[in-house]
């Protein structure tokens, strides 16, 4: 049996919920593939993985995968994940979000989860648009682009999700694109193995909404754009900010050590027990 068929049989709920809801040519499938390959390589058991998502196209992802799966309210996935992780630290908690989930409605939860260094892995599919609801502008829609709610042009500056995560204190931040599938595999694998709040931003195309409204061509043409505009972190360091203006910096942006929330809380428990014992 081909390697990919083995993975499909092992991890997908192939007998239950297919066909999926995504458009032909969508980048989510590539991200899902990268996630499954990474989980398989690091060897997490299916019972110990909890896959949490928010709302939108990316929110539908957990339905298709045979883990403990939790499809939450819009933008709140990280809060549910925080509860799961703290209640049962042995579980491997992975959160799938879109750009709307992570930095619009859930922006507050995103920066605080990073700041606290909760041991979860976030994978954010950034396609610069609200796809499922019909192509409205999101906080990552670039200045000057068109969407269903900015037909004259978007006049807001876009969030840079990875840079936001770095500033908020995430211990691992990586950015890839769905064109660079191999890089995505390794970024997700590193993120899964990293203790603390790790995040991988996946630059993806929504040819159905964002691409169509901005005349950016087919899914393939949009992926070619990713190929032509991606710059590795090392190379980006040698370029001037002018040269980086329309580029996407890919690779590992941050990989550092900070105390992990649940380990710190374990110390609190010990101190609380001592204090409680003294009282008696």
């Amino acid at each position, binding site marked *: 049996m081909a390697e990919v068929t083995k993975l499909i049989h092992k991890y997908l709920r192939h007998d*239950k*919920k297919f066909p999926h809801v995504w458009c032909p040519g969508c980048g989510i499938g590539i991200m899902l593939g990268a996630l499954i390959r990474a989980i398989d390589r690091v060897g997490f058991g*299916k*019972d*110990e993985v*909890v896959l*949490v998502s928010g709302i939108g196209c990316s929110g539908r992802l*957990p*339905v298709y995968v*045979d*883990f*403990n*799966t*939790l*499809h*939450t*309210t819009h933008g*709140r996935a*990280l*809060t*549910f*994940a*925080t*509860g*799961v*992780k*703290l*209640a*049962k630290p*042995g*579980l491997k908690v992975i959160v799938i979000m879109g750009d709307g989930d992570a930095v619009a409605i859930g922006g*507050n*939860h995103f920066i*605080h989860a990073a700041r606290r260094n909760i041991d979860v892995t976030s994978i954010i599919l950034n396609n610069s648009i609200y796809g499922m609801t019909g192509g409205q502008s999101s906080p990552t829609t670039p200045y000057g682009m068109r969407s269903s709610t900015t037909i004259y042009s978007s006049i807001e500056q876009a969030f840079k999700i990875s840079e936001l995560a770095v500033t908020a204190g995430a211990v691992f931040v990586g950015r890839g694109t769905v064109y660079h599938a191999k890089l995505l595999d390794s970024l997700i694998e590193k993120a899964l193995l990293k203790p603390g709040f790790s995040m991988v931003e996946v630059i993806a195309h929504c040819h159905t909404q964002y691409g169509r409204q901005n005349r950016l061509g087919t899914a393939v043409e949009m992926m070619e754009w990713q190929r032509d505009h991606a710059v590795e972190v090392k190379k980006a360091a040698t370029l001037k900010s002018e040269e980086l203006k329309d580029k996407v910096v890919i690779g590992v942006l941050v990989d550092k050590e900070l105390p992990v929330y649940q380990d710190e*809380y374990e110390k*609190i*428990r010990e*101190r*609380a*027990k001592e*204090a*409680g014992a003294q009282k008696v």
Partner: protein
Amino acid sequence: MVEGALRAGCRFFAGYPITPATEISEILSVKLPQVAGTFIQMEDEIASLGAVIGASLAGVKSMTATSGPGFSLMQENLGFAIIAEVPFVMFVAMRGGPSTGLPTFPSQSDVMQARWGTHGDHPAIVLSASTVRECYEMTIKSFNFSEKFRTPVVLLIDEVVAHMREKVILSEEEMEIIDRVKPTVPPEWYIPYEDVPSGIPAMANFGEGYRYHVTGLTHDIRGFPTSRPDEIGPFMTRLHRKISQHFAEIQMAEFFQTEDAEVTIIAYGCVARSAKRAMIQAREKGIKAGHLKLLTLWPFVRSAVEKILKTSKILIVPEMNMGQLSREVKRVSRGAAKVYALNKVDGTMITPEEIMNRILEVS
């Protein structure tokens, strides 16, 4: 309430500071880590309830505490927990509203928010308490109901009860503790939202081998999103049936001298204390007064009110709101008695004298 929560087995709290519910957070931040539990202060109330739901899905009894403005923010995830059937307990200490309102003054103005605050058709279990002992007992009841019926339970108290100090001696043994029913079948046979006769399917915790899907979308019996009318209808019906067929167990009220009462005062929370005093004063004046104290606010205790209607032709419903529960009393009494509201919304308690005056006015 904290003692009740710990006794009931609560080991996870997530919350956000708000008057007059902050004391619960502070005490639990000390006590939960002592018993290997977890306390976390989140970035807002929305996040707090999300974390509570996540912890409960992982198998830990969980709770939060808030007041009106925070309760408004929690309505979104409260609805999620109702449709996904996730147990937990919310303490809500009512203060004056709307909006920031009267943070340090009592009120009973969130009775309807507790019933209908979150969108969509849904059942709700809302309990109340008027003494410190009841706070303890109702907390345990709240956890028991939430675990048994796989649903969130709101314990709705007011600022007076939240800040009340009374001496009580709590017994460890007297109250039964109920835990959620877990599946006993092999994982491949497990149906997480099965339409069982009791209406309450067994609940698997994350990480115990039963990999299933939890969603806020309307789902089929296996937990997967559905748009089929023949699956949506039965699901919604079961969601309501699991509560309605257990009304007798859920609906709690106490009767004081109602056997021969011609005038009955129906009250809850801190107002029930004044109501009891007013009843005694009325009896001293020769008026056949009784008092019905509501411990369950929702589902509304229809049968208890119907029992009173056998003798009482006058019902007085004092409330620190514009009449949120007196309308319910009117509805279920269907003209069999005259229902008089006594509403006070100035941030102060309703006194026994005010209730007494109302009794003299109408009888």
